[in-house]
């Protein structure tokens, strides 16, 4: 019997839908639709699904206008996965017993989702219960998280917090916030009974079960449920989707992170998986490393310091007035497309700046993410997955590849991959329903490989050889030999559509990520859009001080990549 799955993603300006089926023997993507429309615009959503129906020949709805599931019709859908990233950031209050063991993990947890911290209470720093209560009563928020105390540890301070929350809940009446309790488990039931909030209270596991261990995953189910209820109240038009028993809901960012974890677990290279998602209005970085999920959100801003930073890194000479005007107007109108070369230069510099800011933000939030704004990634991530409509509006793959290379500054050998249709989130939400679907769909090469990047770390000066390489494109092809010099960015084009083997032979002082300086070896790379990119520009990237020469160098790099 054929198994069919539908995934729907609702984002601030569009809805997307994917239809997966094993009708050809194994699971594959059979249809995709992207429809512009606000999240509350149910008609736009339905139009998108109708488009998917005509594309796939699949009846998604029955005669009654309801989703056509397999329990009614054997050709119907097994389940639907719904991911959601629309809506303003959820105003969130966090209460922790201490900075290091409660508030820092809570910040990491909150940043995982589209939330904005509007109130923080550190019970250790602010032990006055009356002041805590006043802060809670006088701040508007929709979600509140409490953490602190190891399991079966001291209870007194947490009990006082719970008592305050009880008063807050009484005062707010029906408009109470969602509360997630992720502290000392000995008080979990006490909190539930004291607060009497029904489905608005979410009991999570302790994210700091003992002083040496932090595990945010204990709080994920409770957070997801709380977020679902906030969005449910915010978008009553989508009620039929939110509370359907055969529709699984996940915040989009969580679905992507789940896929990152799956990819990290299934690959054998011992490296992490990095995802960068950029939309015109917001961005997100997800790093999965050694089983740990690290996430940061970014909302588009154009503060004076943002404008100054972008102005300093332009590839063309553009007056500060024009840079500021472009960025401020784009805040009001995020869909704006750069129409001139000057605007394109600002856009590229801004994307570069946004990605660096997110990566630095993640490092600040979670010290186990090794990134330095000048040195780039200090840890090994492969693949690096890119997605989002903020990236696809550049003229070519070469443009957006250079922007990414300059901001991520990868370490060692990695592959950069483009998730054209944003399928990662769709797979992430359906993974629970059918893990075979994920494996088989990923095996269909659903993502576009952009390039294999080899970053060379060498103390040698510009013009000196840092690496020699030999490219084997398969039988019948002559092997290419290349010599790479310090401070150089080189693209090596290969025959499209076939796997390539490369022998890396670094100089004694050069490190290409094979474990030791001077150590080389064979590496294989799948077919890709740009081939092999050797980045020997150094870390920090060596750029001339003179603005004019610097712009020329940047332009040369873009040409080298094929723009």
């Amino acid at each position: 019997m054929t198994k069919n799955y539908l995934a729907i993603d609702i984002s601030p300006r569009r809805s997307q839908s994917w239809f997966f089926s094993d009708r050809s023997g194994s699971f594959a993507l059979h249809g995709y639709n992207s429809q512009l429309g606000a999240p509350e615009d149910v008609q736009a959503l339905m139009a998108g699904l109708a488009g998917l129906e005509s594309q796939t020949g699949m009846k998604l709805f029955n005669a009654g206008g309801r989703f056509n599931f397999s329990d009614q019709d054997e050709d119907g859908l097994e389940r639907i996965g719904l991911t959601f990233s629309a809506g303003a950031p959820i105003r969130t209050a966090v209460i922790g017993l201490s900075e290091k063991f409660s508030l820092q993990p809570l910040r990491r947890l909150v940043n995982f989702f589209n939330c904005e911290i509007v109130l923080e209470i550190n019970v250790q720093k602010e032990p006055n219960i009356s002041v805590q209560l006043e802060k809670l009563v006088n701040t508007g928020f929709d979600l509140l998280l409490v953490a602190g105390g190891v399991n079966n540890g001291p209870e007194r301070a947490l009990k006082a917090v719970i008592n305050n929350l009880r008063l807050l809940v009484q005062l707010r009446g029906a408009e109470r916030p969602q509360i997630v309790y992720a502290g000392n488990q000995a008080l979990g039931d006490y909190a539930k009974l004291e607060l009497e909030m029904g489905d608005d209270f979410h009991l999570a596991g302790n994210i700091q079960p003992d002083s040496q261990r932090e595990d945010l995953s204990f709080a994920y189910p409770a957070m997801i449920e709380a977020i679902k209820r906030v969005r449910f109240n915010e978008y009553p038009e989508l009620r039929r989707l939110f509370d359907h028993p055969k529709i699984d809901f996940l915040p989009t960012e969580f679905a992507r992170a789940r896929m990152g974890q799956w990819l990290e677990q299934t690959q054998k290279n011992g490296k992490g998986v990095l995802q960068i998602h950029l939309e015109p209005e917001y961005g997100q970085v997800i790093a999965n490393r050694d089983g740990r999920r690290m996430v940061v959100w970014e909302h588009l801003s154009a503060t004076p310091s943002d404008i100054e930073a972008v102005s300093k890194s332009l590839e063309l000479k553009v007056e500060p007035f024009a840079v500021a005007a472009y960025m401020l107007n784009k805040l009001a109108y995020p869909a704006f497309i750069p129409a001139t070369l000057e605007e394109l230069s600002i856009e590229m510099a801004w994307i570069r700046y946004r990605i660096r800011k997110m990566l630095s933000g993640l490092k600040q939030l979670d010290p186990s993410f090794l990134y330095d704004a000048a040195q780039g990634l200090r840890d090994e991530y492969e693949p690096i997955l890119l997605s989002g409509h903020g990236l696809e509006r550049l003229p070519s793959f070469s443009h957006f590849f250079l922007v990414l290379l300059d901001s991520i500054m990868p370490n060692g050998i990695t592959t950069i991959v483009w998730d054209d249709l944003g399928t990662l989130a769709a797979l992430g939400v359906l993974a629970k329903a059918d893990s075979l679907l994920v494996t088989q769909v990923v095996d269909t090469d659903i993502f576009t490989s952009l390039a294999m990047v080899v970053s060379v770390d060498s103390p040698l000066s510009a013009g000196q050889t840092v690496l020699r390489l030999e490219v084997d494109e398969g039988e019948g092809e002559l092997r290419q030999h290349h010599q790479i010099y310090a401070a150089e960015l080189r693209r090596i084009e290969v025959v499209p559509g076939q796997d390539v083997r490369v022998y890396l032979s670094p100089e004694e002082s050069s490190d290409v990520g094979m474990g030791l300086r001077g150590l080389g070896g064979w590496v294989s790379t799948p077919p890709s859009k740009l081939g092999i990119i050797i980045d020997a520009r150094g870390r920090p990237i060596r750029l001339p001080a003179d603005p004019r020469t610097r712009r020329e160098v940047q332009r040369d790099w873009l040409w080298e990549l094929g723009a």
Partner: protein
Amino acid sequence: MKKDLIQENFSLIHAVKLPVPGKVLVHLGQKIDRGSVIAEAVLPDRFQVFDVLNHFRIDTRDMEFCIKRLAGEDVQKGDVIARKPGLVSRIFRAPEAGKVVSVRDGRVTLAMGERHLEAVSPIAGVVAEIIPGLGAQIFARGSKLNAAWGNGKIASGSLLLVDQVKNFDQKDLVEKVVVLTNERLLDVMTILEQAGVAGVVVWALDPLQADRFENGSVPLLSLAGFGDSEISSAMIAVLKELEGKTAYLLAHEPFNRDDQKAALFFPVEQNQAMGLFETEQKSLLGSQVRFWGSPYFGSLGEIIEIPDEEERLGSGILSKVVVVRRAEESVIRVPLENLEILSF
């Protein structure tokens, strides 16, 4: 011309909300005036939590005899809330009038004083939707002029076009929504603030001074956004027609929580009832537009053709474009995303 640049018969929906939950005072369909209170919250001004067990250093068994008031009881200043009997008795008195809101786990919580928060509607209209606990969506019908940027403040007043501020007595500017047609805002900002204007409307703003505009005390609206552009004579003519009428200056910031767009709105007195079906959106062809990007920032035009094929822009990006005839008759091709549609 007015019909071309301004959206007539526009249905405005404006959210009026409290910052924290309270009580909504209006009902669906209720007609409200400008300044009507939509929702209010009465919050205790201060709290005092007294830890009886800790302060009196007593055993839980003795607590019952120490606490003299029950939850829900009103108290006056000086009333005894808890007393530890003994040779030297210790007393906790209410520091001021209030209410015992909780007696729990050896702690007595007093709420004292009251703080009133009100969500006041800056516009007149009809309640279109209740936002439970927080406020309401207010509906009004009228004419709307799209704007590009606001500093997050709302104002209303009679519209006044000002060519040179020095030509006006300060008293003539009081509580007016002033449109600057021929002066840089920075040159006259302080004078306008001191004159007590309700709000200021400008065509374009200096992007290098954005933080000053954001933090200004007066509601401020820019029709074209940030850049170097002068208001056109056609736009001045439109505003001239509206001079003296009540204007709502809705200076919403980009990315505001309610996703509301900045606009200058002119309510009509009659027909404030909500239509069951809003006007159907017409074709883009013939729409009046305003340009966002360089080099035509802020200038006006009309869409005269919508080609099917995507075209390569000067930046190298492939995009769907429309053909626009600018006010001075030149014809250019622009991505649709880079235009503000003023009216259909």
